[in-house]
């Protein structure tokens, strides 16, 4: 394995012999059983596989929510595998955005406050944050909904808020975990178009899904099974 800086290869993510082992009583569960791969900057990946194939673990690891048992993970030029909880939080805050199947908005907060959340932790002041939240809401087509609460929105609208929130910190990589799972197909399609649009703007997008139709939006499809890569398809 050649240890080149990722940026020279135009890579943004690289896993080397990545292992994630869960201790289940006496048994060991190899959620990731030695995965080596790299994602190019600005690519759109779909991670596929049946449940238990390790795709969620993959997403948690890549999203810096979890740490490898062994192996290495580089995000741009950072060796993520050596970082502590604080540094991982910092990475998520500055470089990553998340969109979840169940939207994961904070129900007590207005749309604006939800979108502002990453900016709050980035230390932006209230006025700048509000302006940025307004722009992002406009971008995802929710300009008039800033002062509504998530409970007053439809599923599609909630997911748009989630996308706007994921974009607030201008992330390098956006992770989408079954982003259309709780939406009807028409609304789901709109969210996917939104992701396409973001990908065209140069964002790297990593989407976990088990539906082949949805995975087709991604230029690259990583099929996983039993914690290892089954195959990789590319358009």
């Amino acid at each position, binding site marked *: 394995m050649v240890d080149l800086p990722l940026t020279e290869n135009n890579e943004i993510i690289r896993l080397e012999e990545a292992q994630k082992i869960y201790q289940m009583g006496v048994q060991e569960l190899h959620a990731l059983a030695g995965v080596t791969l790299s994602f190019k900057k600005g690519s759109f990946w779909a991670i596929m596989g049946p449940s238990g194939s390790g795709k969620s673990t993959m997403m948690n690891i890549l999203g810096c929510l979890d740490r490898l048992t062994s192996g290495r993970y580089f995000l741009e030029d950072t060796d993520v595998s050596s970082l502590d909880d604080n540094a991982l939080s910092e990475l998520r805050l500055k470089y990553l955005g*998340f969109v979840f199947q169940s939207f994961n908005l904070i129900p007590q907060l207005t749309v604006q406050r939800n979108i502002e959340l990453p900016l709050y932790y980035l230390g932006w002041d209230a006025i700048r944050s509000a302006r940025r939240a307004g722009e992002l809401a406009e971008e995802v087509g929710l300009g008039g909904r800033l002062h509504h609460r998530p409970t007053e929105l439809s599923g599609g609208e909630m997911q748009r808020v989630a996308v706007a929130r994921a974009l607030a910190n201008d992330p390098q990589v956006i992770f989408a975990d079954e982003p259309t799972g709780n939406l009807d197909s028409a609304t789901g399609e709109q969210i996917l178009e939104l992701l396409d649009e973001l990908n065209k703007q140069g964002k790297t997008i990593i989407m976990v899904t088990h539906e082949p139709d949805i995975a087709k939006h991604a230029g690259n499809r990583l099929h996983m099974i039993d914690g290892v890569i089954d195959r990789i398809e590319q358009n």
Partner: protein
Amino acid sequence: MRQTKVFRNIWLGIENVLMHKLRSFLTMLGVVFGVGSVVAMLSVGEGASKEALEQIRKLGSNNIIISSVKSAEEEQTSTDHSHMSIYGLTYEDQFRIAESFSNIQETAPVKLMRKETRLRERSMELRVVGTTPQWFDLVPRPIIAGRVLLPSDQDKQAPVAVLTEFGARKILATENTIGQTIRIGGDEFEIVGIVKSESGQAGNIQIPDQQIDVYISIEVARKYFGDIEVKRTSGSRSMEKVELHQVLVRVDNTDNVEATAAGIERMLERFHKKKDYIVSVPLALLKQAEATKRTFNIVLGSIAGISLLVGGIGIMNIMLASVTERTREIGIRRAIGAKRRQIVLQFLIETVVLSTTGGIIGLGIGTLIPFLITYFSGMMTVLTWAGVLFPLFISMTIGIVFGLYPAMHAARVDPIVALRHE
């Protein structure tokens, strides 16, 4: 910049607390009552000690009061008709006390008699106090009209009297006050002054003056009324010879009061065969009263402290429940990039906002209670700045202490698990 961030954090905390109005209110309740009772307790305690000081001021903190009492054996034989009880302090005693101690600044002899006092058709029984001008130094009271007794009255043995405000109102009524002649016993006295009087007890010592006093020179009292008092009680007659009923002594310095009192006691022991006097020291009483009050305050304080503790535990309980309920929110915040300490801070600020708000409300209630106590029981209550700020400070501290555990609990939440939490 740094400051605005602090305010923003606090503001967000307040917003979060306001999102659950009823729950927040119920959570605060413990602190509300805790702080309320602490404030009330402090003001009652403060009032009590101020009241004690007030009483001591009436007695004079540098004073020693020596009073004549009937000794036990005398009490028994006095049922005999022909017997005359002779007891108590003598003119000699006063002279000796005044001369023997360098610490003593002033002494005042006191001779007490009850006499019918009249002005035309109005009459009432007054307590005649035969004393010297020093009385008015030892028992300082505001002069309402005229003057107090003067050494010249003493020298001339002038039949002049000083009335108290109460006595003046009863006896003189609408009459021309100063210069009026009244009859005390059978003799005429000219009113030369009117003073205010205090009344009541301080500890277990009677305050030297009473409302129904009339002050005359001791020489005059002796000449007109003598030393023997005849008491008629239900047909039987008893006679008592008491030269002085009290001797008031003022010592130069508070530190010397107790030593001087002990000295006086020792000296009197030598000259009196029977124990027919009592030496009382207001200062000692003050100290005793203070000690009692301190115990009282400690008891009250512990009760208030316990209610604060319960309030704090209440907050902790609700905050822990809130952390569980908001696990998903914590997960979202962590996924977005919030560090553990930012989660700790968020929950801590919310708890402190709750407890401090509770503290402020409690302060409102707590300042009301003393008014009610004063209104209904007449007990003196005093609100001090310390009595207000200390409970507020305590309520903030409670927020931090009892908020810390739930906040740490929140920060330990694993974002992956939390995001799946329903």
